[in-house]
């Protein structure tokens, strides 16, 4: 299916105790968390991408009454990560809101949950294509991109090789096929030079990492960190199937 030859080099990665995958990103050491968040311990920075808050109500406005619990579900999982890691900085890596009017549809208690996240730490809204305006009434700083710990954080991955870039936007998903069946999960994609984060939002869809959108972004066949039950599975490029 793919013309990419088998990788003839070894990735340095290790399974950590909490089910995360520990890997190197340029000079930085990061943890890929089973929740889909990236933890940059040296800076105390927690990074999540593509929350797509209020996607449910965006559908409801068009007549499809999806359960209105996606925002609180997403925020609850984010709050759990914040509680577990006590970060100094929380970076929302773009498309935090599903559309430009999402913030106005936000339920009061969900807005409170968001404010609570910003309490006692820096909350940074890297803006994305869905939420280019950034937050209106909510706390936090708006940024086009951000440099931290030798890494660059932006929403949409730049074309070509971008050593040190951490991005979201593409919603990577890994498909693994076996004779017993197949399994599709959200995943991290990384080649130890750059990383693309899975979407964190409850209703965010996935794009197969074999899709052409990922072509040319990596210097060598990347590794997929597939989100399993309480564990990130490191899956090699050759084991990944296209749709």
């Amino acid at each position, binding site marked *: 299916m793919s013309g990419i030859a088998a990788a003839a080099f070894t990735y340095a990665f290790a399974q950590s105790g909490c089910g995360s995958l520990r890997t190197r990103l340029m000079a930085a050491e990061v943890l890929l968390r089973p929740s889909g968040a990236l933890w940059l311990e040296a800076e105390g920075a927690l990074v999540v991408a593509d929350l797509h808050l209020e996607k449910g*109500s965006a559908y409801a406005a068009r007549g*499809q009454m999806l359960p209105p619990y996606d925002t609180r579900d997403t925020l609850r999982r984010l709050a759990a990560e914040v509680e577990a890691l006590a970060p100094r900085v929380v970076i929302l890596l773009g498309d935090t809101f599903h559309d430009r009017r999402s913030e106005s549809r936000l339920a009061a208690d969900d807005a409170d949950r968001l404010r609570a996240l910003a309490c006692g730490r820096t909350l940074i809204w890297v803006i994305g294509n869905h939420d280019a305006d950034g937050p209106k009434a909510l706390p936090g700083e708006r940024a086009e991109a951000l440099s931290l710990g030798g890494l660059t954080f932006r929403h949409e991955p730049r074309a070509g090789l971008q050593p040190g870039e951490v991005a979201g936007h593409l*919603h990577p998903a890994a498909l693994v096929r076996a004779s017993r069946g197949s399994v599709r999960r959200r995943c991290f994609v990384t080649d130890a030079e750059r990383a693309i984060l899975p979407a964190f939002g409850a209703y965010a869809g996935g794009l197969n990492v074999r899709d052409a959108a990922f072509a040319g972004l990596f210097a060598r066949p990347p590794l997929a960190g597939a989100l399993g039950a309480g564990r990130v*599975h490191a*899956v090699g490029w050759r084991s990944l199937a296209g749709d």
Partner: protein
Amino acid sequence: MADAAGPAPDLLPPRFADWFAGRGWSPRAHQLAMIGEARAGRDALLIAPTGGGKTLAGFLPSLIELSERPPANTPRGLHTLYISPLKALAVDVERNLGAPILQMGLPVVAESRTGDTGISRRQRQRVKPPDILLTTPEQLALFCAWEGARLYFENVACVILDEIHTLHASKRGDLLALDLARLQRFAPNMRRVGLSATVDDPEVIKNWMASHRCAPSTTSWSPSPVGTGEDFSTSDPPPRAGEGDREAVEGALGQGAASIDLVRGPAGAEPIVEILLSEGRVPWAGHTAQHAMAEVYEVIRKSKTALIFVNTRFQAEFAFQELWKLNDDSLPIALHHGSLAPEQRRKVEAAMARGELRAVVCTSTLDLGIDWGDVDLVIQLASPKGASRMVQRIGRANHRLDEPSRALFVPANRFEMLECQAAREAIAENRLDGDPPRVGALDVLAQHVMGCACSEPFDLLALYDEVRSAGPYRNLIWEDFEQVVDFVSTGGYALKNYDRFRRIVKGPDGLWKVRNAETAQRHRMNVGAIISPAMLSVRIAMRGGRGGRKIGEIEEGMLEMLEPGETFVFAGQVWRLVGVTNLDVLVQPAPAADPKMPSWGGSKFALSTYLAKRVRQLMYDQEHWRVLPTDVREWLEAQRDRSVIPEEDEMLLETFPRGKRHFMVVYPFEGRLAHTTLAMLLTRRLERIGAAPLGFVCNDYAMAIWALNPLDGLDFAELFDEDMLGDDLEAWLAESFMMKRAFKGCAIIAGLIERRFPGQQQKSGRQITFSTDLIYDVLRRHQPDHLLLRCARDDAATGLIDVARLGQMLARVRGRIRHAPLEHLSPFSVPILLEIGKERSPGQAGEMILREAAEDLIAEAMQ
């Protein structure tokens, strides 16, 4: 050729009597009886075997009425509505009805309307209805969701429901029953006529099709602006939910069911059923009957026209391929199954009708009454799974009652041999499997409520009454109805975020109506209660990676077993998979290649409870073994000598070591679904008690579990205790892929999501898959008692995991587990053990597959 029924000239007008006489026929007793029913204005259910002139019996009264109508200057509305479960059948009946209309010169227009009908014809039919409209339940539901449905149907005198036995016990049947209730409101004098093949219990069907008129709940609203004398003028105050209400419904239940007259056609000649033994041998395992193909081919050669039934599409492809390998005489042998493009199917049907084919390999798509008079033999490859289904299939052969139908069973393995023998005896005794009565599904009701709102404003209480007049919903409680309406309006969430997005709104006049025209339009795009797995179009690859001519459709799951470059059989030819783009599977012909056959599993039908019981009886009764072929008898004898033949009411449980594993095999004969559920639940229990189970495999007859630790010392009574259907079941079910699958079906039917969902969202021109699993997970965490989760659980419990069947089985074997601790595997266990490794277990192996893939990576990295 016809019955010796006495002439009844007063029932049959001269023009019709002459027509019968002119064809050398005389009307049959049940045909005259149906005319009598019509004259008396009665609803009627006709039960007659295939070939008994059933369809004509259904239409004769309408043809007579229409021929006796005085001429009119103004166009008249629809007179008779005919509903068929299959599009092809509606088209077929249109053709068959053409003959008497033409030959008698009747001033009657009869037209079909299906999803395949061209747009101009459909538009014309809406403006100028034919006298007789032949259509499907889905089209009727669509009609009922149009504005002006009331006007369109207000003159309907008769509705004919064909092959009703295939419809009533399903969600399609629920939807049809609701639409009938609606039609009855539009046309209070409409008669209901049901046509059914032989069934075990006609009362079930009568209850389904009857109009359960109950005391009306309301005096508040007469829904028709043009209505003449609505039949609910004054009455008691509105019954809110409560016991009094329920009593009223139950009182009406009896009346409703009694108001359908039962007419029986003549019994046909006894069918002749034989079992094919290839060189007297039956294989140990397998599902394809490949071993017997040469003999099957010989039988086809000696027959005029044969129908070859199989249980799955892939078995159909396989059998077709095998037969053509043997087809040195180039006999015209065709293929017919639901995945083929409609044009291709129609071609086969037409060739069959012209008598040009010698054999058709087909699935249940041809179970129903399409009239192919020349079929003289029905072959069933692999097991029939139920006596009723088999009678129906055998009925396809020889549509003449005085000559017996001929059928040949070809068992694919030894347990199937037992099953074929049991089915053969059941058919000879005319003992059929029964259907349990059905309770209408609430997701279907939600779709119907939305459809009603799209058609015209409704009053809540009036609609409640109308819905309860439909058989499957006659016991619907007010709370459930309210919950459904709330769901239709805002999604039915505890969190009231969506009030401003309501799909239906209550107006100042107290009536509910659809929010706007766009919402109504979107609903109409999503009508119907058939949920099929995601289907991809198979197209011939063109230059530039585009898809050319469409060959048919394939289930998404089937594709997972193929890699680009590999070859497979589809639509009777060998193709090479080029790739997949969006919803197209691109292929190139690869005629010379040796195709990879994807694994197809066994039958999708569970063995009927009744047939399973007969198989157990046959197995236990050693005297009875005489009727079985030698190798099967020897197999049973070896089982008796090396293990145990269980008593009729016992369940055999064998334990034995094999390799480094310890096996436990049981033989409940309850079908693959129930066995898989049992295996899932037992695995959890075995895990808990430290037996370290490693895997399991199931087929229709048996289930095997293997573990690291010995299993023979366990307390089996406790292990198989019925309490596994409590917490264990709920805990497992909540996480299981079956709930997710069931949820998706319910969500589509109920209108929570649209059929095109998972909405292929365009993201910079790319496909983002937004799975309904995400919605399921969120809803389950935040509102576990939501209406749709309830629906999904009910569906999963019946359709996908067969909890009811499992429950009956656990009750049956309580205190009757016969444990045979063995040193080696037993003769019975061989077929099931041979299936290990061939079976797919979708959704359950996810983590293990990922873990393995991660290990692959380590191996890859260490190279």
